């Protein structure tokens, strides 16, 4: 006991500078000693590899010194490990046998059962391992120095000689035609991926995917259940989410719009857009010009459209002018008219590209008239 590493480390004459390691390449220190792991033991002291059977004495006040308490700790660890076996079996059994179908008697216990057994299985192993390490293992820290990054000089010399003789044998240094044509051929491979990148970029420009939506002239305004909206469906102060009546129109995220009805004398249209509205009905894109959140919070008294993400506010009675918040541009407007059957139809696409700014966005109507 008195000869343990800890005792030797804490003795005053050991407080010298670090010295190179010896044969075993590592030393052991006790983490509980005052010097901690930072202290490298002098080489004059034997390493555990040479001390062999002395290891038992390194554990200080650990339970392994007390056979009875060590036995108890071992049993506790074993219990935890067995608990995880129970967890695994319980998980598999409840996965197969517990009622799963919605509404079946006791179905609501299915997921909690799986969770409880999985917790048992994982914590059993984990807690057991930690307990094992804390009670029964030798609590020692080892320090091992890195070997040099460079190889042995003799190895390096022989590798260099091998390369050199290989190059001579291939004839490359002498045959310049061979060498240059090889460089040209291999170098031209680098050109291969360039058309691929070019193709990706071209695709976006061709499709105008960011500029156009599903709305086109003559498309009726459909509600969320696919019904066309008629003049007179909305009361003053009413709003309705509308989608274009084109194939797949109700799934086009960029085409979502809001039909609003207000008193015709409250609605101030932009001068060039007098015939874009119909008897107090007006349609705007609901995609925020800041970051594309749905601007569907409509206040019937203030005629404000409000974005829940960053509080951008638009005045629906004045061309959806951006009043407040980070959005810099007005909401795009959709020109509408009424067809001969009394249904609302779009006169074309939105007044400008919907949603946030993007690289190739063209200056548009609202940029010209200002805010």
């Amino acid at each position, binding site marked *: 006991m008195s000869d343990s590493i800890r005792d030797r480390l804490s003795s005053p004459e050991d407080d010298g500078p670090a010295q190179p390691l010896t044969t075993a390449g590592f030393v052991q220190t006790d983490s509980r000693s005052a010097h901690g792991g930072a202290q490298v033991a002098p080489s004059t002291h034997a390493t555990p590899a040479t001390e062999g059977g002395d290891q038992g004495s390194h554990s200080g006040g650990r339970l392994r010194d007390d056979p009875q308490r060590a036995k108890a700790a071992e049993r506790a660890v074993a219990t935890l490990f067995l608990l995880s076996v129970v967890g695994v079996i319980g998980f598999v059994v409840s996965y197969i046998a517990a009622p799963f179908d919605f509404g079946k008697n006791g179905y609501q216990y299915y997921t909690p059962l799986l969770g409880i057994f999985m917790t048992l299985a994982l914590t059993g192993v984990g807690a057991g391992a930690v307990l094992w390490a*804390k009670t029964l293992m030798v609590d020692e820290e080892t320090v091992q120095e890195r070997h040099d990054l460079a190889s042995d000089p003799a190895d390096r010399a022989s590798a260099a000689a091998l390369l050199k003789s290989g190059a001579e044998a291939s004839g490359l240094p002498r045959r310049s035609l061979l060498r240059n044509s090889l460089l040209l051929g291999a170098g031209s491979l680098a050109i291969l991926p360039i058309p691929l990148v070019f193709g990706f970029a071209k695709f976006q420009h061709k499709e105008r995917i960011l500029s156009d939506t599903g709305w086109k002239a003559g498309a009726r305004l459909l509600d*969320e259940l696919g019904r066309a909206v008629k003049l007179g469906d909305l009361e003053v102060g009413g709003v309705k989410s509308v989608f274009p009546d084109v194939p797949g129109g109700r799934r086009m995220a960029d085409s979502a719009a809001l039909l609003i009805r207000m008193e015709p004398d409250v609605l101030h249209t932009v001068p060039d857009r007098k015939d874009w509205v119909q008897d107090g009905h007006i349609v705007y894109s609901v995609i925020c010009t800041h970051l594309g959140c749905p601007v569907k919070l409509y206040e019937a008294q203030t005629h404000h459209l409000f974005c829940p993400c960053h509080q951008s506010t638009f005045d629906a009675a004045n061309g959806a002018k951006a009043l407040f918040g980070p959005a810099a541009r007005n909401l795009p407007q959709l020109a509408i008219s009424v067809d001969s059957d009394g249904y609302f139809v779009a006169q074309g696409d939105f007044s400008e590209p919907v949603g946030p700014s993007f690289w190739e966005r063209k200056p548009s109507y609202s940029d010209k008239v200002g805010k």
Partner: protein
Amino acid sequence: MSTLRTKASGYTVVVLALVLVGGLYTALAAPKGKADVGTNQSIAVKEGRQLYLQGCSTCHGLNNQGGAGGPSLVGVGASAVVFQVGSGRMPLANGASQAARKKAKYNRGEIDQLAAYVQSMGGGPVIPAGSLSDGDLALGGDLFRTNCSSCHNFAGAGGALTRSKYAPALKKADERTIYAAMQSGPENMPRFSDNQLTPDEKRAVTRYVRFITNDNKDPGGAALGHFGPIPEGLVIFLIGIGALILVTLWIGARA
């Protein structure tokens, strides 16, 4: 010719007699029941007018025309009264950005009388008779998510609007209040006409709102106010990371 005329005059007499009998019947028998309903209705209107003059006329004017601080009530209909008075928002206690829900000042009977009176002054939407809670739950969910959830939150927990206005949480609203709100569009809420959301669809939304706010037992555990992934993530982060730190400390601690 004369026989034809006799025949014709005979038919005329029969027709006249039928008209006379029918007219007498309508005059004597039918009006009786009608008079009952009418009298009840007019009593309700009369009682309602008394309540109105005492509790509402200071702001809304002696003849619903509006006035100091209160809007005109002509044409708002009975459902506006059911919503505003039934949810305690009216009479208004103090001026704020919008009327807040409080304990109702009037009982159900008085609210119906007030509603009958306001309805008699210019008409407006009325809550239909019969159950409001037998709508199609799945349809109600579809309609709620497109028409209501942007302001009232996907779980009816409410949310903020501009300048300290807010869309209220829906948990305390009963069927009549929910239905009346859709019809009358109180304050900044849009109105949903019967052409836009049919009575069947309004009943579906009403049932769905009650379902998600009151009947849903949150099988996933604590709902954290139904505000969604941000508070959930925050709680998981704080509690989860805290627990992990404790476990780490235990692993590193001396035995």
